[in-house]
């Protein structure tokens, strides 16, 4: 039986779709200040972050972030070169040891300072795929095509996902406020520009706490009742792109049933449909009421934000069983599922 651990606080930036002239740490620093004030904590038992050097085009993005968070006296700290949802997983594991009670998790990314889809090409197999120059949207379009052919979904079904996400995003003060999807032009067919998550700069932070500490810090903690992540092979030719087997397994292992609200890290409209199917989310589950990544997709923080947005529904009492999801790699290669509950645990 895992030790009861909960999300007790969540903070994020007002994300930006364009360069505001701030360095990554300038984007991050106010979020750290806010979450420390909110929790009344200056130090945490463990700190873990997610970021990616390739967004800055220079090594050690996390080093300057450490300067921003005030790591003095020295702190117990680690970093994943992944979305910060995996940093949250590492912190959750650390809290299972039992020798610490709190953890600070944060992620940040400034996608606007490069050409994101070209940058993501450098994530591909460097011997076989990357030299072809295939970009992230083209790979996503292959997946969208495979999904539409198998499921019979039409472009209008994808557009409906974009329309719902953008409408929800306009009601979220932290998301970009994007207009109704329109136009017939393709980005990479069958994907239209509105099927693709916007380039976004932003940061987010979460505080985890265990047992009584969580109850002290939060009126209604969002208890993590299950968390799991899985990967699939990288090569797009050796997996069924129309499905997400890794999301399915992670969902099963995390106990993703009876979900009222799901925040999915779907960076393309068709990914939401694939993930709904993989996670068995029916019509009675509200998906991405925050607007999701299609309304704000700050790289390396967007997955963590899904967990934070889901937890926020528990914190405010509007839901009691929710799910946050994060993905990494091309075509939903890696998936993390975190199930949270408002019912008292431990």
């Amino acid at each position, binding site marked *: 039986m*895992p030790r009861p651990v909960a999300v007790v606080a969540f903070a994020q930036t007002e994300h930006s779709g364009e360069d505001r002239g701030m*360095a990554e740490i300038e984007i991050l620093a106010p979020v750290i200040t806010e979450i420390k004030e909110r929790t009344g904590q200056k130090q945490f038992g463990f*700190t873990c972050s997610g970021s*990616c*050097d*390739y967004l*800055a*085009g*220079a*090594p*050690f993005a*996390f*080093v*300057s972030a*450490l*300067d921003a968070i*005030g*790591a*003095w*006296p*020295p*702190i*117990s*700290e*680690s*970093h*994943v*070169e*992944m979305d910060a949802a*995996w940093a949250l*997983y*590492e912190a959750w*594991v*650390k809290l*299972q*040891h*039992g*020798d610490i009670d709190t953890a600070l998790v944060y992620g940040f990314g400034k996608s606007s300072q490069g050409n994101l889809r070209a*940058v*993501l090409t*450098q*994530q*591909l197999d*460097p*011997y076989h795929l*990357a030299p072809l120059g295939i970009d992230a949207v083209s790979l996503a379009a292959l997946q969208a095509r495979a999904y539409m052919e198998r499921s019979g979904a039409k472009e209008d079904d994808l557009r409906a996902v974009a329309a719902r996400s953008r409408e929800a995003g306009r009601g979220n003060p932290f998301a970009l406020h994007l207009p109704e999807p329109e136009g017939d032009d393709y980005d990479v067919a069958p994907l239209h520009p509105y099927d693709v998550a916007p380039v976004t700069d932003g940061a987010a932070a979460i505080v985890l706490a265990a047992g009584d500490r969580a109850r002290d810090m939060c009126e209604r903690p969002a208890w993590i009742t299950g968390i799991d*992540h*899985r*990967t*699939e*092979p*990288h*090569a797009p030719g*050796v997996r069924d792109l129309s499905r997400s*087997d*890794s999301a399915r397994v992670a969902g099963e292992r995390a106990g993703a049933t009876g979900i009222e609200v799901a925040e999915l890290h779907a960076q393309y409209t068709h990914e939401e449909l694939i993930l709904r199917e993989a996670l068995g989310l029916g019509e009675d589950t509200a998906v991405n009421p925050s607007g999701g990544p299609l309304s704000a997709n700050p790289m390396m923080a967007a997955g963590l934000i899904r967990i934070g947005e889901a937890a926020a529904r528990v914190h405010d009492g509007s839901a009691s069983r929710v799910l946050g999801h994060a993905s*990494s790699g*091309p075509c939903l*290669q*890696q998936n993390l599922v975190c199930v949270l509950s408002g019912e008292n645990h431990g």
Partner: protein
Amino acid sequence: MANRCAIIGVGQTAYKTKRLDVSMAGLLREAARRALEDAQLTWKDIDAVVVGKAPDLFEGVMMPETFLAEALGAAGKPVMRVHTAGSVGGSTAIVAAGLIQGGVHDRVLTIAWEKQSESNATWALTVNSPFTTSLVVGAGGYFAPHIRAYMRRSGAPDHIGTLVAVKDRQNALKNPWAHLKIPGISREMVESTPMLWEPIRYLETCPSSDGACAMVLASEDAAKKAPAPPAWVHGTAMRSEPMQFAGRDTVSPQGGKDAAADVYRQAGISDPRRELDCAEVYVPFSWYEPMWLENLGFCGESEGWKLTEAGATAMDGDIPWNPSGGVLSSNPIGASGMIRFAEAALQVRGQAGEHQVDGARRALGHAYGGGAQFFAMWIVGSDKP
């Protein structure tokens, strides 16, 4: 209270300037297979994989754990990628150990690597973000002033760094995996090499290597089935401090002192020099041996160089440091920390071959990174903690 964690398999590749015979995936697979063979396990026995390496710019591949998933037998499993600069190899092992100690998994493959021949590490370490000016070239350019500060502060004579360079290279001659093997290595040879970053001479710095190191970590139950004696984790610690901070002591960073105190407390050690049998410590520039002797509490301030000079850290000294030849002899950067951790495990398992320290029962593995601001350490023992 955390569950016990054992090291039941260790695998290393030969460390070389260039491994043109294998891809990155092939290099990792070589180390991972050796670790699995050591544990007499197969890929399907592994529950999760934790990968570590230093900055992605070292090979020019962003988040390489995605393309490596197949090679690591990871399809269908959890994979994580840790990155804490030069300390990453150690941090990666600690994250993997955490999965066992937290009761999440029974058998975890952890692997760290660098294939530096596919890019240029000194260039990658010199690139700065557009918001700051790079004032140094490579790691040596950054660390040289801190070494000079140590020399001035401690009154150490000029030749101490040379002694470490010779000692570690002599040890490397006994390590089949070591990169630099320099027969007849001597003080004269080191002193005749060019000055790169005053006071660091060419042979007082680490090489640039291709290589990978892997370990299979296991729960207490899983370790019962291991064919060879396991090494047991007696303590782990990570500490980080800011790089830019006026109050920092960059010669003997507080983060290093705190991590050492934490890991000694967990292992029940009050006098590391007496209670540890050997140590694998991250010494990429020779002068970091005396500096870390003090930082890790093996002696008092300004005393480290005296231990080195007296031969205390040599193979036949009372506290051998870097019997494997250390980072000075093999430096695939992302793996270098894990090699320290793995070599400590080999010592307490009695499997270090010709560079075995007789009767070693407790050993320290140590790594540092960034501007000497990230620290990862573990203590392993032949007895259960």
